[in-house]
């Protein structure tokens, strides 16, 4: 079973919950937030192996190109321009979709590959860890996420740590989801963006529950929403300065004595709700 951890709002604690659940449940941990993957800071995998992620880009045979511009017209991402003297390529905008090649009547286009990111795999105390890392300056995270998820090592259970928001980066990861947990914080922003994540999960018919992180006096905000929409609340992680300090040192906060009950409860509720065994 693949359980996706998402949030809507950034900074609510997706990675904190993901790495601690993976450590507690001894599942594989997959960091799909390739624009800022930080789960390895906490799990600290060893013997990490790396594999480049290539993306195709078009190359033009000037002897065959008739400068018709069909390729530039077909490019949804404006990665090509027809200057009437040559076809210009803006590689960082090219998604490698091959639409240009499909519409090129004189067959002047072939493809080469460039590296946009890397997949890293390692192991930490019996937990297999993998992540995608998008290269600095690149725009497109999806090819890296797709490669990461298409090359997973067979496993019974996995925690998939998603990107914030509800963009392509998240929907790409959700293609591999059997269930999901939405991490929120008891603020108006947390509630609003959680609503977007909830809507996405409902549309995709993925079963899910909610965890309130930095829980405290304003939890009613989230509880009311969950009650009104019949969404199970898997648990809450109390607001704690001590936990924040442990986090900032790269430690697993689930191992703190005052946090153990909270994570045990989340794990238990999650396993029951998703019939995980």
């Amino acid at each position, binding site marked *: 079973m693949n359980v996706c951890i998402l949030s809507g709002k950034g900074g609510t604690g997706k990675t904190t919950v993901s790495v601690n659940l993976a450590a507690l449940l001894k599942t594989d941990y997959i960091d799909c937030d390739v624009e800022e993957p930080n789960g390895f800071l906490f799990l600290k995998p060893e013997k990490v192996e790396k594999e480049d992620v290539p993306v195709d880009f078009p190359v033009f045979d000037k002897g065959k190109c008739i400068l018709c511009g069909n390729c530039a017209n077909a490019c949804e991402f*404006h990665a090509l321009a027809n200057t009437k003297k040559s076809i210009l390529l803006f590689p960082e905008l090219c998604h490698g979709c091959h639409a240009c090649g499909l519409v090129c009547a004189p067959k002047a286009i072939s493809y080469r590959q460039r590296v946009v990111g890397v997949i890293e795999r390692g192991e930490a105390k019996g937990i297999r860890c993998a992540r995608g890392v998008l290269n600095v300056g690149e725009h497109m995270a999806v090819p890296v996420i797709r490669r990461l998820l298409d090359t997973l090592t067979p496993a019974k259970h996995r925690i998939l740590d998603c990107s914030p928001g509800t963009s392509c980066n998240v929907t790409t990861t959700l293609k591999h989801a059997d269930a999901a947990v939405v991490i929120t914080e008891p603020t108006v922003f947390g509630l609003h963006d959680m609503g977007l994540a909830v809507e996405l999960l409902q549309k995709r018919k993925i079963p899910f529950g909610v965890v309130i992180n930095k829980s405290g006096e304003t939890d009613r905000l989230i509880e009311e929403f969950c009650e009104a929409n019949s969404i199970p609340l898997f648990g809450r992680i109390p607001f704690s300065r001590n936990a924040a300090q442990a986090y900032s040192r790269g430690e697993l906060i689930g191992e703190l004595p005052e946090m153990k009950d909270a994570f045990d409860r989340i794990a238990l509720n999650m396993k029951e709700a998703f019939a995980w065994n």
Partner: protein
Amino acid sequence: MKIGISSTNSNATAVVDPRFGRCEAFAIIDTETNAIRFLDNAAKTASGGAGIAAAQQLLDEGVEAVCTGNLGPNAYRVLSEAGIKAYRVSEMPLMDAAKLLKDGKLDEISQAGQAHAGMNRGSNR
């Protein structure tokens, strides 16, 4: 000479839009006859590559020069590869910009400005 000017709207009373890729419209002006017409900037809401698409639109229109406030690196590359010169103008009435160009009183944009300079600005400036 047929020129393209980034414009704040599609009326003859519009002024030069300092943004290129994300301007509202392009005024196409014949500097011999002063005939003016407008093209909607199809790229203004593009998620990416707006400067490239806007430059392509003007190339397809067959303009021989461009007047605007700022050109980003990608739009600059498209126009310069095509041999189309771009000239820097402030937010003035369109026909004034066209006259300054015809009289040779405008400075050529000889290097690209900052990328994404025209983003996140209201459309009703």
